[in-house]
């Protein structure tokens, strides 16, 4: 992604808006007693779309915003979302998965990593909580819910950042066909 002031502003707005939606709406809607968590999905999407460095920075800032808003220990969410955003970016850079459902898989994996990482950090910080089936169930349900939401979040983020992304050869090819261009096969 091309880093310009416009792209930074857009990413900032996306993070702010996403964080507010997460805190104001999504966190208060529970399915089977568990709310979805858009924050790791956004960090994953940022990394997957814009690369590892942008993903890490976006994850750090989003985590900081969440920690401040919820008056939690500063740095915990930042650390976790930095890792998640960076990891998603690295997957894109190393593997470049072209499948349409790749964001879903990466979103689910990112959510699982974030949930487990957050739990581990809480344990390391001395939070007295038993590793119960309830905790595992909550993590699992969050992963399931986030898996369902991964594709829409990715699509929104991608649409918002599209002007700053380099031209995708696949996309260019598709556009050529739909606007009347000849496919290589028909030319032959």
């Amino acid at each position, binding site marked *: 992604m091309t880093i310009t002031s416009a792209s930074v502003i857009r990413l900032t707005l996306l993070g702010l808006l996403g964080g*507010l*939606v997460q*805190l*104001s*709406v*999504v966190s*208060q*809607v*529970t*399915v*089977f*007693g568990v709310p979805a968590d858009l924050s790791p999905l956004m960090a994953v999407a940022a990394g997957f779309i814009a690369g*590892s*460095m942008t993903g*890490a*920075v976006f994850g*750090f800032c989003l*985590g*900081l915003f969440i*920690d*401040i*808003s919820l*008056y939690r*220990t*500063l*740095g*915990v969410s*930042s*650390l976790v979302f*930095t*890792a998640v955003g*960076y990891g998603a970016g690295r997957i894109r850079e190393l593997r470049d998965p072209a499948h349409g459902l790749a964001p879903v898989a990466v979103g689910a994996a990112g959510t699982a990593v974030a949930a487990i990482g957050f739990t581990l950090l809480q344990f390391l*910080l001395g939070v007295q909580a038993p590793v119960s089936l309830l905790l595992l169930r909550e993590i699992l349900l969050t992963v399931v819910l986030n898996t369902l939401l991964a594709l829409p979040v990715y699509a929104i983020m991608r649409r918002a950042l599209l002007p700053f992304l380099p031209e995708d050869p696949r996309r260019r090819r598709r556009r050529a066909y739909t606007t009347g261009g000849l496919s290589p096969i028909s030319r032959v």
Partner: protein
Amino acid sequence: MHDRAVRRRRAVLLVLVTASLILLTAYFGETSDGRLHSAQRGALGALSPIQEGASRVLKPFRDLFGWFGDTIDAKDERDRAIKQRDDYYSQLVDAKNRLREAEQKAGLNDRDTTGGMAQFGPVDARVYMHSPSSWYQNLTINKGTDDGVRTGDPVINGAGLVGKVETATGGSAVVTLITNPEFATGGITSDSQEPGTVVPAVGALGDLLFKFVDEAKRVRQREIVYTAGTISSRLESRYPRGIPIGTIDRIDIGDGELDRRIHIKPAADLKRVDMVQVLTEPHADLEGK
């Protein structure tokens, strides 16, 4: 060029992770009046109006999504409530059954002690099968020959006579109810002391008739009819004397004295019999004499 990009990427990651760890350590180590806490409170104060406004703006969406979540949760809660209700219902049924059994058992004990039935070798039994047919009125109990129950033994409950043992096996017995068409026994009225024969009313299920009464006109409504016991030494009755059979319910007066029909309502509620006693020594009073 590539190396520079890699180095920059790693450096950024290192900086961010370090910043996170420093933040975490510093925040965790300081008191609630520390700098980071104060900064967090300040940021929170600045952000709270935005969050509040966003919360108001996004309330319709929250309500919309909440509706879906609440619907799913409500369904879940409804299923739980139904299961809980069923559990309570089964507990209630169980408690009611136990209460009814206890009441019947108390009646039987009372009959043993104050009614003098203890001398007839009563054996407590539980009814575990009721005949589904109205025509063959019998029930099955969980005591049999192993417990001393024999064919022909009278069966009573706390209210009065229930029937007699039709047949008995090792661990169970079939009891014919007094309303069964094959039933008949001698009875005597409580006040007028008129003897007669108690038989089921044919065609009127659950109704008994008091027949062959010498002076039927002396019999009054609401008199209690008891088993007459053995009157003649040549014909021993199956039933000891003094077991209530029922109450004179109504008297149909015909053309003459012989047409008088005396109806008896059974003392025992034969539709709800759970605990009974089999009198295994029905002639104990005669042997005593």
